[in-house]
Structures are given as structure tokens and as C-alpha cells.
């Protein structure tokens, strides 16, 4: 009893102390939350003010009279763009911040510009020496800064530091690596894809999509060396190369592409079949139907998808035979191919199937016809 009362007394004392401490903490955090929100708001307002100022400066520099003399005159009032020296009273941190805001505004403005306007923007970026700021970030140890630096340099089409960027295309840090790969392609188009020869890390689906999208907006020039990338030990490089071959209609690589049907990796097989949508010869149909029997369901599905545009009447017996498949999705896709081949698919050819399958096939056909 004595022990329990002792514990209880001690506990009560502790609880009192804790409660007082907690009450203080609660008050502190309430006030901190409130004043932080005010401070953050004030800071945001200030940043917005400077951004607006930078935006109007950019408009003046680019659109009013963008001769060098006139620009020098305008810039004379901005210490952050003058060399550090006597008479310049501007802290390094503030200078850095103001210059960063200028870069941010340039990147924002670039999205709304085209043609000569973009060229003027590049020149201004160069003239203001902002590339040095970006390069400093690129050489930083913090990956976030590296990503920022790489993006700025590539967006501003500044090629001088391309070697440093290129080195980053196989960087261990995923974000740096991805940004560098995008940057190299942005700077050099399909020629930039040469990083595929050295990249050892997996190129994610997201990254492949980003690169393809970037290439979509560039002039249609075939990349060189796809056949070498086909030999890569990096599976993701093979898959991406197949996508490139499909995108650029590389008929000369048809044989190599067809060989990937033997590849142990299903995604490679799928991509290889997918290429045959655009790149095929008179043997492709036969090849696909021959492989159909030995591949997994996802590959079968893509083969049927490709056969919709590739199949000729010679595949009809094969397709009818495959209608016996137990998988409904496969049957539906087979019927799609058949529907493409013949206007009216003859159900009597499927008489060997069980009644239930016939019923579902009739329904499927009505579905396909209404598509």
C-alpha cells in the first residue's frame, strides 16, 4: 500500500509538471501556428512583389527595345545583375535569390513564347550570366539543386556545360539522372539519346514516356545506333529502343525486332510485337500466329491487337481454332480480329465449342459490331 501510494504521489507530481509543460507547449504551438501563417503570408507577398517586378523587367528587356545599349540602361538600376564590386551593396544571399527569381520568371515566360522571342530569352540568360548560377547548382552536392541547375541550363538551351550534364545521365540519384537524360534530349534532340549506350540504371516507364513526349515535339530525325541499344544488357534500354524503332518506323531493323519474340522477358516480347503494328513484312502475320501458341496471356493479347491491322484471310482457320480458348478476354479479341477480316463472322464454324461459349460469342459479336 505504501509503495502504491508513493508511486501515486510521484505520478501525480509528474502529471502536474507534465500538464503545466503541456499547457505551455499547447499555447506555444498555437501562437507559433498563428504567427507562422502570418510570416509565411508576408514572405509570399514579398516574393510575389519581387516576381512581378522581375516579370515587368523581363517584358521591358525583351519587348520594348531589346538593343544592347537600351538593355544596359535598364539593367543599370538592378544591382543583382552587376558584377560584385565597389559600390554594390547587396548581400550574396539576396543577390542569389533575386537572380534565381529572374531565372524562374524566364522559365515561366518561355512557355508562352516561340520563335524569335525564345531566342531573345536565351540571349538574355547568357548576357546576364545566369548560366553561372545554374552551373553552380549543377555542381552542388544537393541533388535538388543539381536537378534545378540541369533543368535551367537545358531549358535555356545553354550547351556549354553539356559534358557535365551528360555525366549525370547515369547518376546514382534517380532525379538527377532523369533530369539529365531529359536535358540532353532537350538540348540535342535524337542525338542526345546516345546516353542509352552508357546508362546502367533502369529507365522507368515514366521516364520513357517523358522522353518520347519530348521527342514528339522535335523534328523527325531518326536516331542512330538503335541496333546497338538492342544489344544492351539493360532491359529497359531494349524496351525503350524498341519504342524508338516503332516511333521512327525503322523498317531496316525489322529482323532484329522480330528476334525479340524469343526474349525471355515478357515486356520485351510485348514491345517487339507492338512494333509490328507499323513495321512488318509478308512473314510477320505467320510469325505472330506461330508464336501465339507458346506465349503468355499478355503477349497473346497484344498479338491479337496487332493482328487486327495485320491479319489476312490466311489466319481465319487459326483464329477459329483459338476461339476454343477458355479466357473470355482472349475470345473477345479473337472475334475483333475476325470481325475485321470478314463482315459477318460465321458462328457455325465454332460449332465444336460448348453451348455456353457460343452464347457468349454471340453476345461478344453484337458488342463488337456496336463498337
Amino acid at each position, binding site marked *: *500500500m505504501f509503495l*502504491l501510494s508513493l508511486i*501515486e504521489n510521484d*505520478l*501525480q507530481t509528474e*502529471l*502536474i509538471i*507534465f*500538464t503545466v509543460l*503541456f*499547457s505551455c*507547449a*499547447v499555447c506555444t*504551438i*498555437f501562437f*507559433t*501556428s*498563428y504567427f*507562422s*501563417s*502570418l510570416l*509565411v*503570408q508576408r514572405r*509570399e507577398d514579398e516574393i510575389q512583389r519581387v516576381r512581378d517586378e522581375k516579370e515587368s523587367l523581363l517584358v521591358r528587356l525583351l519587348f520594348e527595345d531589346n538593343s544592347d545599349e537600351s538593355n544596359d540602361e535598364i539593367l543599370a538600376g538592378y544591382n543583382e545583375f552587376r558584377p560584385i564590386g565597389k559600390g554594390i551593396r547587396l548581400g550574396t544571399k539576396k543577390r542569389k535569390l533575386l537572380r534565381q527569381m529572374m531565372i524562374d520568371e524566364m522559365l515561366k515566360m518561355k*512557355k508562352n513564347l516561340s520563335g524569335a522571342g525564345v531566342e531573345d530569352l536565351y540571349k538574355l540568360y547568357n548576357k546576364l550570366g545566369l548560366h553561372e548560377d545554374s552551373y553552380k547548382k549543377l555542381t552542388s552536392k544537393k541533388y*535538388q539543386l543539381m*536537378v*534545378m541547375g540541369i*533543368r535551367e541550363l537545358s531549358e535555356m538551351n545553354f550547351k556549354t556545360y553539356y559534358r557535365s550534364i551528360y555525366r549525370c545521365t547515369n547518376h546514382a540519384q534517380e*532525379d538527377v539522372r532523369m*533530369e539529365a537524360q531529359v536535358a540532353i534530349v532537350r538540348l540535342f534532340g535524337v542525338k542526345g539519346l546516345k546516353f542509352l549506350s552508357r546508362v546502367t540504371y*533502369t529507365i*522507368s*516507364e*515514366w*521516364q520513357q*514516356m*517523358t522522353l*518520347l*513526349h*519530348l521527342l*514528339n515535339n522535335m523534328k523527325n530525325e531518326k536516331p542512330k545506333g538503335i541496333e546497338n541499344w538492342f544489344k544492351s544488357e539493360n532491359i*529497359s534500354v531494349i524496351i525503350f529502343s524498341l519504342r524508338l524503332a516503332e516511333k521512327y518506323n525503322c523498317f531496316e531493323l525489322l529482323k532484329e525486332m522480330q528476334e525479340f519474340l524469343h526474349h525471355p522477358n515478357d515486356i520485351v516480347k510485348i514491345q517487339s510485337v507492338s512494333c509490328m503494328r507499323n513495321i512488318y513484312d509478308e512473314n510477320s502475320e505467320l510469325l505472330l500466329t506461330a508464336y501465339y501458341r507458346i506465349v503468355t496471356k499478355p503477349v497473346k493479347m497484344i498479338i491479337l491487337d496487332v493482328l487486327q491491322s495485320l491479319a489476312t484471310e490466311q489466319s481465319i482457320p487459326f483464329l477459329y481454332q483459338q476461339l476454343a480458348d477458355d479466357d*473470355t*478476354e482472349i475470345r*473477345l479479341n479473337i472475334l475483333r480480329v475476325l470481325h475485321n477480316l470478314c463482315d459477318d463472322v460465321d458462328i457455325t464454324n465454332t460449332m465444336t465449342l460448348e453451348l455456353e461459349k457460343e452464347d*457468349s460469342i454471340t*453476345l*461478344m459479336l*453484337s*458488342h463488337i*459490331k*456496336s463498337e
Partner: protein
Amino acid sequence: MTWELWFFYFFTYGILIYSVILLSAYILIGIYSVFENIQHMRKHGFTDYSMVASSTVVPAISILAPAYNESATIVENVRSLFSIYYNNLELIVINDGSKDDSLQKLIDAYSLIKVPYFVNERVVTKPVRGVYKSTNAAYKKLVVVDKVNGGKADALNVGLNIASKKYVTCIDVDCILEQDALLRMVKPFMLTTDKRVIATGGVIRVANSCEVEGGKITKVHVPKDMLARIQTVEYIRAFLLGRMAWSKLNGLLIISGAFGMFDREIALTVGGYDTKTVGEDMELVVRMRLYMEDNKLPYAVRYISDPLCWTEVPISYKILWRQRDRWTRGTVETLWKHKKMFFNRKYRVLGLLSYPYWFFFEFLAPIIEFTGWIFFIVYAALGMLEWRFYFLLLLFIICFGYLFSAFSILIETFTFRQYKEKRDVPKLLLAVLLEPFIFHLCVVGAAIRGILKMVLKETTGWGEMTRGGFAKKESTKS
């Protein structure tokens, strides 16, 4: 010492120890979440979604939106879903046997006609009465399915059967999505290279009082209604100081039913949504995870901490009570169904951390709290109560709640900062102060009611959620 006294001490200090462990768990998870949120913002802050939003190479997504008796808002809600900026998607609206004229309104508004449609019934559902497609090319992405009423899970299963894309997004039809929400949700599926991402979930925010225009949130306001405001704090706390940590530990057991994306193949392989539970969102995630664990397949469930989806929360205690009762039953049903995971080393983080956490701190917490109140009354009546001790214990717990909630608001201020007006933070802090006395008691009561319903095997369905709707919000900023 008498047994009564022993019982008294066991109970008193038991609650104290339980509270300390619970609060410590909250602190640990909260701190971990904050770090992970900051990491997430740093990592994904660079992504320029606008660059790929218009791309034709984005992966295909099916959006599944079940609707039941939503005649008042259905046309506007579907229009809002059309405003999502994503190139490659199909929108499947499932009319779950509505008793009102929801279907007719959709037919009229979107020029729908019934088409012959083969439904591959990989998951058995209530019969589909018809599938409708638009004759207007502008709505070619829209598929409306009319089916016999079977509940939300059954409607989603029909959607899973009909969906033709690789990824499915299940959303509440009245949710408002951010423009790049789908891209953000699909990104982890495509970015992860060493394992298969089976599901992703995003942050749900409270849309009450927000300004909506053309199906988009144009201005965020703190809800005017105090109940909705308290739920705003609750949502911030839960999403900001909880889920990110579980995601990082790969121990996330729930993807919100209001907005989640799934790998369709895995969802179908495990049998789709369970129609026998009211917690079908949590149950599906747990079952998908178990499937991957049992088959020793590397996988992940990811969570995106950016605010992606806005939804209206209940503003009446009656509806809130029903919602929380349902949530509790859903949790208990899922935990009971998958009890084999409990401290099962085979399931790693899932069995040793996630499940026990949900069992002890989500399922047991309201029971222990409620029992505490009962004993408090009994001991007070018997004159056995140490008033000073209990007062301090209560104060300690309430203070911790305040601290934790205010901390979540502080983190929100420094991270996503959705509430930007000068008076927003004080309004939220006021809600924090009132939460234990208004909201919390209702939530505990509803949880106990839910558990009792389960014990007594009372069955109730989904209940109905009265909503203001987008149209109303647009005109009145409700």
C-alpha cells in the same frame, strides 16, 4: 489489498499506460510523416506535369464512378469529371439501381443510347440492365452502366468488369479532382522499377465552403460550419501526420474510397471488392496486399501527399454518426476477416506493425475510451475516485490532442498551405479547441454503436449522404 482495489489500480494505470503508448505511436508516426512529406515535396516538386498532361503516350486509365440516387447533381458531377486534363481515359458511371431519375438525366444530358455490350463477368455482380454510350463524339469517353442495386462495392465490381484500361481509378462521383490528379496518381505505377505498384492513394481535402467553377476548386476556404471545420482539422491531421509514414514503411492498409487508383488485373485476380463489408476500400487493399505477400511478389502501395481530391463532409451530426459507424464496422470487418495477419511474421510490416497498430489504436481506442468513461462514472458514484488524478489525466490527454492537431496545422502552413487567408489559421485553431468536446464524443459514440451493431449482427446499408452539390456551391459558395 482487496480485489476491488487491485482492479481499480489495474484499470487506472492500464489506461494511463495505454494512453502513453498510443500517444508515443502518434508522435513517432507524425514525425516520420513530416520528414517523408518534406522529402516527397522536394522530390516531386520538380515534376512538370503540364509537360506530359497533353501527351498521347500517357497510360490508359478507367475512372469508375458509382452513383446512387444522385439525380440532383449527377449531370454536373459527370461534367466536372470531363474537365480532368488527361488524354487517355474512359469514364464509367455506374448507376446502382437509383430510385430517382439519375439515369434519365444522364441519357438526356449526354445523348446516350443503349448499346449491346458484352460484360466479362470476372467478378460476379448483380445483373447489368444496360450499357449506354453517347451519340455525341464529345462524350465518346463516357460509358454509363445501369444495374440492379447492390451497393457501392457491387457497383465498383461492375466497373472493374467493364473497364478496359490497365489502371482503374475509383472515385465518389461528387468529388472534385485537381487538374493533374490522375497524372500524380499514375506516376508511382510508372516510376517504380523494382516492384509492382498495386495501388495508389491521394490526400482528400474538405470542399465545404470552397469556391467551385467549371468543376474545379478556384478558391479554398475554411468551412463556415463548425462541424465541417473540425473535420478539416481531422483530415489534415490524418493525411499529413499519418499516411505518409505508413506508405514509406509499405504498411498502408487503406486507400480512401473517395479517390484511389488500382492495378486492375490484381484487383480482379483477388476477386474485386467484397460486397459483404461496408469497408470495401480498406478490405480490397488488404486483400491485394495479402495476395502479393502470399505469392512472394515484390509490390508497393503508394500514397501521394499532395492535395488531389476535394469532397464534401457531413454537416449534420446524424449523417456524421452514420458515416463513422460505417467506418468503424468497415475497419472491424476487415480486421476480423484477415485476422491471420495478426503478429504473423510471414506478412512482415503488414503483420507485425500495420495490423497490430490498427487493432490496438484504431479498433480498441474507442472501446477503451468508452470503458474509461463508464468506470469513471461508476467509481465517482462509489466515491472511489481520485478527482485530482483523473482531472490531470484528462487534461494531459486533451493537451496532447491540442498539441498534435495544432502541430498538423503548423506543418500544413509550411508545406501545402491550402488555407491562405489571415483568419483561416485562427479559425482552424478554434476548431482544434472545440474538437474534444463536440466532435470527438460523437465519433467515439458512433464507433461504439458500430461495434455493437456488429456484435448484435444488425445489418444496415450505406445510408445516404446529403450533399450540397457542385451547382449549389457555385452559386452560393455553401
